[in-house]
């Protein structure tokens, strides 16, 4: 099955390359570059800066982990990249360069050709993301026919092949199943098969394992990582779980209140966190196998995440920060480099 796949993959690639000659002209190895992205929501109560000046790159075959608590803007960042923001939300600034092409300036029609074919998404809840009245094979095949001129039979064959690639046993038979006949882990595999069937350059996985049990989560993370290596996929993995991020990401971006507060290589961010928020997050999770010294209290970050409608001036984290000084609230704090490829938004770092 792997032979078949490696045969068909360069084929699909060639098709895409010929459609966009500018791809080959780009010297950059970054598949995705997000520059100063701003997505605001214009609500009756005021402007919510859900994503505020976010920049990062994802090189070919690498994984970026986007981590943060609920409401920090990590999912809105993903939806902005795929341009799935609906009113009152709007992308008000910045660029999203996919292989050098700015997606923000594309028409909705052009964008529809990008989604699913060049960028695809895997969502948290596989039950709500699948149509309950269609067989899973049909739904994967549909993704193929939407982007490529293929016969029904061929699309079906591609669907079955994609299901084999995500290690679904008995794929020919399972393709005729409806979503409710499959377990949560199997449904998430279907979602991954659907995301990969058109051989996208970039896959965005938004909390792909949050709804799953830990033993199934381990299977899915392992699968995602092996598919990334096998097909040289670029992956953005969004999660609130620091463990999941540490498991697969090479680069980690920590978001707080719409901004990236720290970004760097996973080793640096996890072993040498510079931003007080990153430090606090890492210290507040209980660690497995530490029962000997565990009678200590957990470290807890005081207070709660601020309301994005009424953000404090300057650093948004300042009210909860143990390092805060008067200067923190005076002006916007820039993201500054503290080491090679390690940037932090804190004047006390």
């Amino acid at each position: 099955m792997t032979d078949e796949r490696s045969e068909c993959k360069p084929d699909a690639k060639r098709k895409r390359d010929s459609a966009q000659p500018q791809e080959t002209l780009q010297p950059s190895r970054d598949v995705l570059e997000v520059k100063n992205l701003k997505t605001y929501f214009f609500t009756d109560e005021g402007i919510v800066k859900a994503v505020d000046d976010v920049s990062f790159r994802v090189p070919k075959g690498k994984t970026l982990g986007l981590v943060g608590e609920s409401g920090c803007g990590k999912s809105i960042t993903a939806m902005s990249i795929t341009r799935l923001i609906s009113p009152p939300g709007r992308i008000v600034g910045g660029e999203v360069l996919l292989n050098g092409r700015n997606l923000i300036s594309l028409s909705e029609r052009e964008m529809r050709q990008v989604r699913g074919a060049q960028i695809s998404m895997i969502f948290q809840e596989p039950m709500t993301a699948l149509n309950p009245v269609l067989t899973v094979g049909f739904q994967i095949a549909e993704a193929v026919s939407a982007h490529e001129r293929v016969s029904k039979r061929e699309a079906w064959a591609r669907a079955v092949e994609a299901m084999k690639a995500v290690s679904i046993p008995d794929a020919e038979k399972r393709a005729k199943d409806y979503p409710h006949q499959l377990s949560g882990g199997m449904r998430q595999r279907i979602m991954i098969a659907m995301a990969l069937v058109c051989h996208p350059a970039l896959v965005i996985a938004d909390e792909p394992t949050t709804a799953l049990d830990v033993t199934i989560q381990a299977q899915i993370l392992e699968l995602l990582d092996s598919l990334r290596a096998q097909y040289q996929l670029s992956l953005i993995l969004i999660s609130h779980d620091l463990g999941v991020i540490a498991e697969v990401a090479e680069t980690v971006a920590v978001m707080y209140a719409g901004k990236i507060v720290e970004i760097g290589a996973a080793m640096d961010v996890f072993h040498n966190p510079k931003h007080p928020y990153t430090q606090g997050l890492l210290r507040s999770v209980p660690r497995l196998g530490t029962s000997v010294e565990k009678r200590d209290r957990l470290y807890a970050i005081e207070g709660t995440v601020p309301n994005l409608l009424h953000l404090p001036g300057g650093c948004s984290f300042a009210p909860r920060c143990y390092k805060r000084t008067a200067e923190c609230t005076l002006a916007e704090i820039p993201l500054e480099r503290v080491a090679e490829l390690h940037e932090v938004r804190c004047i006390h770092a």
Partner: protein
Amino acid sequence: MPDVAEPLLSVQHLKKYFPIHRGVFGRVAAHVKAVDDISFTINKGETFGLVGESGCGKTTAGRAILRLLEPDAGTIQFDGIDLLSLGKEQLRRKRRDMQIIFQDPYASLNPRMTIRTIVSEPFAIHHIARGSERNDRVADLLKTVGLDSSVMNRYPHEFSGGQRQRIGIARALALKPKLIVADEPVSALDVSIQAQIINLLADLQQQFGLTYLFISHAIPVIEHISTRIGVMYLGKLVEVGTSQQICTAPKHPYTQALLSAVPIPDPAARKERVVLRGDVPTPIDPPAGCRFHTRCPIAVDRCKIDEPPLRQIEDGRDAACHLV
């Protein structure tokens, strides 16, 4: 914790089956064996952690112990009394000593009630304290869980998840219970808020000498808060031991796989893990013999026929496996 271990709750051979009705006449076609013969004891002042994946029966066990669901078989000794022998009225009075904290702080607080009404409801049900005294008690409870008493006239939607969970905890504490069943109390909360609530629960335990039955799928959380841990799989307890025994040297192959699946927040700790094949089988028709044999990496022929009983394998630790 008291020096001499004194049991507060003793559960023996607890079973809870849910009938599945089929056909026009709704005949019972099968049973979901949600909890199938589990036994454990919880000592005064300790925290017993019940851990397992979804559908393993941990929540059903928690509810059956409080008789929020009527158990089908077994005995429950609580504070020297046989809970299952109590009549409705006696049980209602006994419930003062056993309270529950729910997972979803959004669904467990009535949106049309003020915080004052929610927290004073236990007093109303049990006819305790009235008027200004009741008010004072509510204010005290809110202070105990870290909320200002000025929030009393507000409604649940005005609070964040963490604050709502504090309100749920205040309600559970109102009648000074002996046992609190905490069913996934921090699972719906953000990481930074989780730590606050876990610390609060630990403080309250110290302050009031509470005993917890802490139910969760999050193993590091269970390890942090529990004195002893019981691991469930498909309605059965497969291993019981101290927190340290279970989390640093698991013996049952399922416990080992479960622990090895936990992602560690350290990129240097990426490890070779025991990845279990397949999914959890259905509890309607669980596998014969050892229920874990279909996914077990070390299963032998005997495991398919003989069901291993939970037996003591070393001091303080029980496991249900032929091979340990």
